[in-house]
């Protein structure tokens, strides 16, 4: 029956378009979302052309004269560009190495907890920092990590020299990585916890009967079941390596740690403060996005080589 209709309708059928017609009402409900994306996410992308222009309010986006790659040239020529570019990548890489596996581990550990109330409490506590803004946390960490702060008082008590964590190039990046880990670990583990609840308990039961211990169960059942989620999350994380956490760094850094902590977005912000140079910041943004999309493609391609999961 189906085969014969396919034959008749040809391309229309093969492409699957017929299903939109068949489920007309549902397709219609999708329309607002599509329009939303077209108008607010695709149409506005047009503004990115100002990266290649000398933008002026009066002349508008279309009327402003083209300047070719001048804005990009300026970006690459500035003395600090490679420093901030390197800082961005290094800090993001550190964050990826620690911040990516940590929530997975945390989710698995939480999952192994039996007590309902204790588990819920731990979970809630671990989510809380996610809801605090870096403006507040920045002030908090500055107090905690200052020379007269509790951490240094403790160091002095055990006979160590006090450390100026936020003003010392040797410690600043570690502070960024650890505070970011602390803030995000609970929240990022939610998706893994959700995936964990989807694992069929019969698998565990069968494993137990075969004599597998907890560790074996984790290695052979839990982790393999998480692989699809882990893959997709990893692709996303790699894609965002180029995106630094402006709020965090801006609230924690100072002039003494520029050499290790100044990143693309903070540097750009300071340029924006002096002059409203939209075209320049657009150029930097475009550059970042191009890198991000290339990274996503590469990771997606590699992930698909090794297993069958990917974004598309």
């Amino acid at each position, binding site marked *: 029956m189906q085969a014969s209709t396919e034959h008749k309708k040809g391309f229309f059928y093969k492409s699957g378009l017929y299903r939109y017609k068949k489920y007309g009402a549902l397709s219609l409900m999708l329309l607002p979302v599509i329009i939303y994306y077209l108008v607010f996410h695709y149409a*506005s992308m047009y503004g990115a052309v100002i990266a290649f222009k000398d933008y002026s309010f009066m002349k508008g986006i279309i009327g402003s004269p083209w300047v070719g790659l001048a804005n990009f040239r300026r970006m690459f020529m500035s003395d600090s560009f490679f420093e901030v570019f390197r800082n961005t990548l290094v800090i993001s890489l550190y964050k990826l190495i620690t911040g990516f596996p940590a929530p997975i581990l945390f989710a698995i550990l939480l999952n192994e907890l039996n007590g309902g109330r204790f588990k819920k409490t731990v979970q809630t506590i671990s989510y809380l920092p996610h809801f605090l803004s870096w403006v507040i946390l920045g002030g908090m960490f500055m107090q905690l990590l200052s020379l007269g702060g509790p951490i240094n008082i403790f160091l002095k008590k055990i006979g160590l020299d006090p450390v100026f964590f936020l003003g010392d190039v040797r410690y600043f990046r570690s502070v960024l990585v650890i505070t970011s880990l602390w803030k995000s670990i609970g929240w990022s583990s939610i998706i893994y916890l959700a995936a964990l609840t989807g694992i069929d308990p019969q698998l565990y039961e069968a494993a137990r009967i075969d004599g597998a211990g907890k560790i074996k169960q984790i290695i052979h059942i839990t982790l393999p079941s998480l692989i699809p989620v882990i893959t997709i999350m990893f692709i996303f994380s790699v894609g965002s390596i180029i995106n630094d956490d402006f709020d965090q760094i801006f609230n924690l850094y100072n*002039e003494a740690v520029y050499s290790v902590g100044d990143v693309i977005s903070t540097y750009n912000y300071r340029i924006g403060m002096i*002059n409203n140079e939209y075209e320049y910041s657009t150029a930097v943004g475009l550059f970042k996005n191009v890198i991000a999309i290339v990274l996503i493609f590469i990771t997606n391609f590699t992930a698909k080589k090794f297993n069958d999961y990917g974004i598309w």
Partner: protein
Amino acid sequence: MMNKKILGMIGAALCCSFALSGCGSEKGQENTGGKTQISWTAWLGAPVNENADMIKYWNDLLDVDIDVWNIEAANYSETIALKIAGGEIPDVLYIPTMASYTKYAKDGILAEFTDEQVKEYAPKMYETYKKTDENALSYRKVDGKLYGLPALTTKYRRPMAYRGDWMENLGETKLPETLDEFETLMYKSAKNDPDGDGTKNTYGLSAGGVYAVYGAYGIVPEFWMENENGELVFGGVQPKMKEALALLRKWYSDGVLDPEFIVSEKQSASSNMSTPFVNGKIGFTANGEDWHFKPKFDNSNEAVDWEGDNVKELRKIDSHAADSIRLGLPVKGPHGDCGLGSSSVIGTKSATVSFSTKLQNDEKKLKKIFEVLETIGFTSYDNLLTAKNGIKGVHWDFNEKNQIVYLDEKYQQYTERAKIGAHTVMTTLASLEWNNEGKENEVEWRKETKADYGAIENKLKTVLESEGVYGVELEKLRSEAYISIITGSKDLDYFDEFVRKWNTSGGEQLTKEANEWYKGIK
């Protein structure tokens, strides 16, 4: 992150521009009663009410119809940029930063006018500007043309604030006059336990205090100054700066300079309270401006006077310490220099008021707007008082001591005054002539503390053409160089290398532009 926002902004602007401009014109046609309609922007403490008392007051008095655009002060620059991108320009455009002003002027969205027009339309305003500074209007010229009127702000020098109770504990009574005396006091503050708690937990000075040292060498590192040849040079790269840094380097290694001096003393960007000073970590600061250390006067122009932030906050911890704060004078350095950074009456930090380019060919309306601005801010103390506080007898009145008393207590809050269209809504441009009216105590206090003594102003009062290109890079270079020299991570001689780098990374170009501008002004 920034970029996404901007793209979004521009996209939204594109989408909305048609709709918005449509709305705008409709609104304009609604109530034409022969009155000149003026759309108005300003720094607002709170959104102005519909039919606000004071707007009505000025509308009736001046026969105009003012429409205040309620733009939140915190997001003013972004919001106004969005509106302008959408083709909406208010008749009276408040521009908070000099950089935006220059950009708008170059982009052609501002009406150009001449000194003669100001003189003709608003003679009293013109006179005030001329009296303030012969070049007052020239400072706002972009490529030789005038597009805006600068706001006037009282000039304040950095303070030299000492903890009097600490000095007492250290057996010092005299405030330092020379850098040597200052050094002695700083060492004692760090070494001799001035707070008497038996532990070494104090320092002489921190991030703000270093400016006192720079000043003793006649330098404000961020400012441009005139050299002996009458040319502008950048303070931060002068040879004397090396000596100042050498001294601070010594103080740092001796534990006199707070190791956390690289973190600003300010509690937050918008606060002028010095955290280490209030917390009793340092005994001296030059952070902020002298009025942040102002005591409360019984006899001021308002019945309820206020205390400077630092005094107020310190009082919460230690009332005796708060009362003991002493203000000194800038100290004299080894070369006889003596000074301290100060704000300017008209500087690059002062706001500008400009007019929409639509008024370029509407001389009648432009004239009317000048009349409004002049009447409110430049003609009489009464008008200015009304504009700032409300109508006498309705919102406030004088008490028997000729002090302002708000008839409804809520008006003590500036936000409440902003809501009725008073406070800063109409007074972006105002003469400073009557600023001290009724404030005899404060005037006396400033005279006693010699609050203007040794004030060093930035000689450069414009935004240089290439500042957007080199500014951030040079600032980064400078702050990193200073910190690494003071903390000892680089040799003192690195200063010479830093000066060379500063010059080749754009400093030379800025100096050239600064001097071109300076010649044009002189």
